[in-house]
Structures are given as structure tokens and as C-alpha cells.
């Protein structure tokens, strides 16, 4: 299968990107500045991320659609206001996660942002669950561009008037060159920022405008170090079909009212796990030295028993040290529990820690 290119491919090339294949797309892993510089620029200024490989699924329908989607997602969608977003999951009957996603209420339906590697399968699952009753468009004609970091609001507001009035996890339609673009105040870096859905035709022009105003292109490499410092899950690593939202320590994303009703796919398991507890749970892990524990690194307790595994690990440029997430047996998941990480045959001390490793406040109550 030929790898796909996003509408910003030419711009990436012009910006001297190093490319990698990711979920069937040619994507920039980094540009000439390198991952550490790109990471810090995002934290201190404003980074642009081409995330056009992600799925933008529009589903149109009215009250019946809301009812049907509530059978699928553990959210109170009836109460979700127009242009408000929620983080959620597509699960199987065992509450295993097919994908994690952001769902936004739009006029006449919902917009769901899906992971690139999962989007085709999600589409199939959702079509089947919804019995093909609704118009569903996995829109390939739109690009998705994130702009993240403290200067992003100023830069974007210069181009698109009034985006500064958006609160975190809300969105709206705006105009760019007479084109309707949908902007949400959201992201995947732990910074204030926006995600912009723009037609492919205008994606390049829009992005070059952001660059003109001082933002810089950032590759997938820094996207990973940024999200890991922010304690955010990456599908295929922290989340997969063998892990549930309760095990992933994401129960905050499940509506309490929906749990009491217990009528969504996977709710039996979720309720059982909430009542009885889980065997393994996602935690933050901070190595004591500089050692980097990568994915699949084995975790041991002080008695040398194998208690878990790392799911993501790297060097955090803002933390200026190694950071990791992983799953450990529940009894070893308390903050400050000492554990050992086996890297290249040697066991290195580390501590279970709170997430995120790096925290800033999101913008709330603008209006």
C-alpha cells in the first residue's frame, strides 16, 4: 500500500523535515532544530503540529443519534452542550479500548476525532453499532492542524478574530479566507492551544500564516515527549484492547450518571472493576538517575518480583530527566513506591509518581 501524504507535505519538505511512516502516512518526525529544541519551543512559545492523519468523523442525526451514541460511549451526551467536547473511548464488551477519542457536539450531530491507526476500524465498528442509520463521513477533505503553547492564543487570534474567547474543551466555526474552519481549544501537549479543522485546499496557506506570525512546525518526536510529560496516553502504548479505562486510570472520563445507569458497551466490566478494584493500573514512573526505560521495560518490586511493564518512556526535555508511564500491580501503584527497571540487564531504581510530570493550567472561564 502506498503511503499517504497530508496537504502540508510540501511545507514539511520545505521546512527540512525528516519523515517517518506513521499509520500509513508520511509524517514529519522532526525538523532541522531537533526534538529537544522543538519541545522547548512549544512549551515557551508556539508549536504547529500537522495531525491531518487523524480521523475527523462527522455523524449527523438528532435525538435518536444521541440515544444510540449513549449506548456506545460512557458519556452524558444528552447534557453535552453545543460546541462542547469530551474525551472518551470506543470499547468492546469487555471494556477493552478500541480507540480513545474526542467527541464534540456540533449542529445536527457530532464530530469525533480518532487516532490515525484506528480510524478505519472505528468507522466500521461504529457503522455496525449504529446500523448504518445515520450519515457518517470520515472526512478526508479536511486537514487537522494543532497550534500549542503559551503564545498560540495571540498568534491564532491575529489570524482568526475572537478565538481567544474559546474555553478549554469547547469549539466553534470560524472563517478563514471565506472558508468555514472548526476550531477547538484543546491539544495533546499539556499546553494551552487549539486544534483547527481546515479544508485541505487552505491548509498550507493557513499554516504558512501561523509561521509568519512566529509559530514553528513541530514533529511527531516532540509531540511524543510533550504528551508524555503531560501524562497523556498514547493509543497502542498505554491503551489497547487488553486494557480498560479503569485500569488506565481514566475513570474521570466516565460519566457517573452513566455508571449508575450501566447501559453502555462494556459497562458491566467497568462497574465490576470500580467496585472490586483492578489487578493492574497505569502509573507515572520517575527513574532516580538518568536512565531511560523504554516501552516493554520490565518493572520489579524491592523483593525482585516482576510487577509490571513500561508502556512509554523517554527523556523529558522540560523535566530535564527521564520520564515513563507503565502498568504495575495495584498494590505497588502508590505514589513514592520504590521499583526497579531492568534496562540492558541491570536493575535501576525508580519511583512511582503522580502524573503529569509537567503541569500548566488550561484556560477556563474566558467568558
Amino acid at each position: 500500500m502506498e503511503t499517504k501524504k497530508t496537504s502540508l507535505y510540501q511545507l514539511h519538505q520545505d521546512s527540512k523535515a525528516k519523515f517517518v511512516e506513521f499509520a500509513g502516512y508520511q509524517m514529519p518526525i522532526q525538523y532541522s532544530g531537533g526534538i529537544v529544541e522543538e519541545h522547548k519551543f512549544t512549551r515557551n512559545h508556539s508549536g504547529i503540529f500537522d495531525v491531518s492523519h487523524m480521523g475527523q468523523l462527522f455523524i449527523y442525526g438528532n435525538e435518536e443519534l444521541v440515544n444510540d451514541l449513549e449506548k456506545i460511549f460512557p458519556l452524558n451526551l444528552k447534557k453535552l452542550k453545543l460546541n462542547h467536547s469530551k474525551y472518551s473511548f470506543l470499547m468492546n464488551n469487555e471494556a477493552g479500548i478500541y480507540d480513545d477519542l474526542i467527541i464534540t457536539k456540533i449542529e445536527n450531530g457530532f464530530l469525533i476525532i480518532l487516532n490515525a491507526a484506528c480510524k478505519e476500524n472505528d468507522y466500521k465498528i461504529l457503522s455496525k453499532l449504529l446500523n448504518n442509520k445515520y450519515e457518517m463521513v470520515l472526512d478526508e477533505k479536511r486537514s487537522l492542524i494543532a497550534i500549542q503553547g503559551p503564545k498560540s492564543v495571540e498568534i491564532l487570534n491575529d489570524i482568526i478574530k475572537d478565538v481567544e474567547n474559546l474555553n478549554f474543551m469547547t469549539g466553534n466555526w470560524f472563517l478563514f479566507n471565506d472558508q468555514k474552519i472548526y476550531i477547538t481549544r484543546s491539544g495533546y501537549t499539556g499546553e494551552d492551544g487549539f486544534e483547527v479543522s481546515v479544508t485541505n485546499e487552505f491548509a498550507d496557506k493557513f499554516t504558512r500564516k501561523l509561521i509568519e506570525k512566529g509559530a514553528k512546525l513541530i514533529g511527531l518526536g516532540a509531540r511524543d515527549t510533550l504528551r508524555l510529560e503531560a501524562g497523556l496516553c498514547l493509543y497502542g502504548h498505554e491503551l489497547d484492547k487488553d486494557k480498560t479505562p479503569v485500569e488506565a486510570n481514566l475513570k474521570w472520563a466516565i460519566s457517573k450518571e452513566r455508571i449508575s445507569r450501566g447501559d453502555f458497551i462494556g459497562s458491566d466490566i467497568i462497574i465490576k472493576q470500580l467496585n472490586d478494584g483492578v489487578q493492574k493500573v497505569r502509573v507515572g514512573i520517575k527513574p532516580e538517575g538518568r536512565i531511560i526505560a523504554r516501552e516493554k521495560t520490565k518493572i520489579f518490586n524491592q523483593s525482585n518480583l516482576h510487577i509490571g511493564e513500561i508502556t512509554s518512556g523517554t527523556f523529558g526535555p522540560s523535566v530535564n530527566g527521564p520520564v515513563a508511564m507503565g502498568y504495575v500491580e495495584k498494590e505497588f501503584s502508590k505514589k513514592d513506591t520504590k521499583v526497579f527497571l531492568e534496562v540492558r540487564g541491570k536493575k535501576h531504581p525508580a519511583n512511582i509518581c503522580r502524573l503529569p510530570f509537567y503541569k500548566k493550567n488550561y484556560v477556563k472561564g474566558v467568558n
Partner: protein
Amino acid sequence: MSEVKYSKEHEWIKLEGDTATIGITKHATEMLGDIVFTELPEKGSNVEKDGTAGVVESTKAASDVYTPVSGEVVDTNQAIVDDPSKINEDPEGSAWFFKLKMKDQSEMESLMNKEEYDKFAKESAS
């Protein structure tokens, strides 16, 4: 006179008397990206030609460092362990990795000179 030679694993080696100083090339650092972790062999240990003698890690991945010649490790550069970014800044100068007392200087003969290495690096990069 000191002589600098290069290996196919992108290490440089500089021989002065019977002491060889070893590091990784600028080309290697460009391929690795930002180096954020370094592990060096223990002083006093013996390393064998083409065997692993350390690790460098970028934000993306870990890579082994090989020694192009055999010998006893007589010194290591703690500065690049404390601040691995020094390797990106001055890979073929102050950011050397370790020094060996060489057992067999004829091992130098099979290594590349500067011109051969530059050609090799250019070809392997494309």
C-alpha cells in the same frame, strides 16, 4: 604524530603512543539527534574489538557504542554522562567517550581514514 581513524559503526579513534581515545562522529550525532543519555564502559575493564562499549540514547531510541579496537579502559569522560548534550556540541573534540590502552596496534590498519570515512558516511546516509 597522532592519527585519527574511523569505523563503519561511526566511531573515531585517535592513537597517541599506545593510548587510543574513542568517540562517535559528527555524522553519527546528526543521525541520532539530541543525545540525552550516555553509558560508558567501566574504568579498568577490558573491551574487545567490535564489541559494545557503551550506549547513547536520543529522545527516540537507544544505540550501542562499539569499540573499533581492543584494550583496557584507562579513562572515561564523565562530562558527557553528566551532560549528554555536549556530544551533539563537540562530538569529535571535547566529547570523547573513553580511552584505551591498546593491546594490538595493528587493529588500526583495517579502519578508514578521514577521506574514506566521509565517502562511506555519505553513501550510507543516502
